[in-house]
């Protein structure tokens, strides 16, 4: 009988003491958390995509509350979230231009000539260990093993026929695919930019002709025809100056290789 009594007393007392110590400790060791931090955290998209450059939404919320980060970094939430965060923090909202991912390569399996038949692990980094950094003859080409597709949390990136394609309606511009691409092919472009050459091959035109059915050959036709001098050929490949482009789409029409993508259709 005494054993039972002792058991109850000892465990009860231990529990009570620990409870009291913890209750006291929570007062003594209380850390002030900025109430705005929680409000900001609530307003964020909560995808923990890391597009803001901070470790997760909590990290970004803490940085915003501390005044170390601007209000418009949440790319997944976009302008609506930026406005909410700005309201919580009581500062003017300077919404960031929405960015989307873009893959400047059109080298699908039936378009770009293969270098060898790759059958190793399904991982672009592994495929890059073999000669030429690509299983296609074009060393600039997308490998198409889907590291970007796996990195995308928004189902916006898909490898189709050996080349990654962005679903612009789903892309939030977090940049996870940009970091995941071992060849640094994927890049972020402003969503308002409707024209982009879908090739990054810097080889001379004759060489490109041999290895890809659509690759940019640097013929300069787009450069000559552009009314705004926005598109220029440098290193044998056409590039668009976003600040000058008037989005007319004329270059896409005149390109003999039809390699300039026009999203405004």
């Amino acid at each position, binding site marked *: 009988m005494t054993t039972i009594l002792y058991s109850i007393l000892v465990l009860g007392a231990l529990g009570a003491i620990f409870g009291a110590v913890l209750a006291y400790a929570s007062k003594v060791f209380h850390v002030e958390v900025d109430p705005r931090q929680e409000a900001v955290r609530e307003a964020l998209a909560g995808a923990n995509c890391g597009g803001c450059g901070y470790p997760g939404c909590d990290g970004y919320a803490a940085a915003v509350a501390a005044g170390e980060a601007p209000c418009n970094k949440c790319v997944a939430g976009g302008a609506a979230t930026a406005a909410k965060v700005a309201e919580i923090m009581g500062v003017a909202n300077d919404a960031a231009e929405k960015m989307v991912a873009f893959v400047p390569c059109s080298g699908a399996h039936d378009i770009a000539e293969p270098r060898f038949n790759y059958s190793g*692990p399904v991982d672009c980094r592994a495929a890059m260990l073999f000669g030429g950094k690509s299983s296609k003859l074009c060393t600039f080409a997308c490998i198409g093993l889907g590291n970007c597709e796996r990195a995308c949390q928004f189902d916006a990136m898909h490898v189709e026929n050996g080349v990654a394609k962005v679903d612009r309606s789903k892309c939030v511009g977090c940049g996870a695919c940009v970091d995941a691409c071992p060849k640094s092919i994927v890049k972020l472009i402003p969503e308002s930019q409707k024209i982009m050459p879908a090739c990054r091959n810097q080889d001379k035109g004759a060489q490109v002709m041999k290895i890809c059915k659509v690759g940019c050959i640097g013929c300069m036709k787009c450069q000559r025809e552009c009314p705004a001098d926005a598109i220029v050929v440098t290193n044998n490949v056409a590039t668009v100056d976003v600040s000058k482009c008037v989005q007319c789409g004329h270059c896409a029409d005149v390109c003999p290789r039809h390699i300039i993508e026009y999203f405004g259709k």
Partner: protein
Amino acid sequence: MLTNILSIALGAILINNFIFSQFLGCCPFLGCSSKVDTATGMGLAVVFVMGLASAICWVVDTYILVPLGLDFLETLAFILVIAALVQFVEMFLKKMVPSLYTALGIYLPLITTNCAVLGVVLLNVQNHYNFIESVVYGITGGLGFMLAIVLFASVRERIQFADYPECFEGFPICLVSAGLLALAFMGFSGMQIFG
């Protein structure tokens, strides 16, 4: 005395490694080992909590439970002590050592229900260790855990590039490699240090 402590330490790290030969703490071992960074964080947190838990549980056992003849309550009482201790340590670190708190991060509360921590304090009682021996056993047991989880995380980072059969994708290949690693540690088993 010193040789005794050395033998306890080596025993806890290599010969009777908590994960590979006693199979305690397998849950965080498999859950937190996909990256070397997180594995190191988890390992550090375990070393920290195991050392503290050993010290406090030894005091509770020797000065409260044994004199009252309540040794049969050890498991219950130890769970209580560990749960309270982890909470307390978390609050203390958050206030006093924020850098350590951010380093250990979410791993600290996760350890509350880690069987390796409960295992180490129960083994202390079973082996009739004194206070210093208990603390050494706790810390080195944690170091053994850390060694195992960091080794395993490095292996897993490499497995990503390995060409294994598709049916082993994900968890199965993990368990196979954990088994092989445990087998390697079996090489230490049965060794005796200093008689």
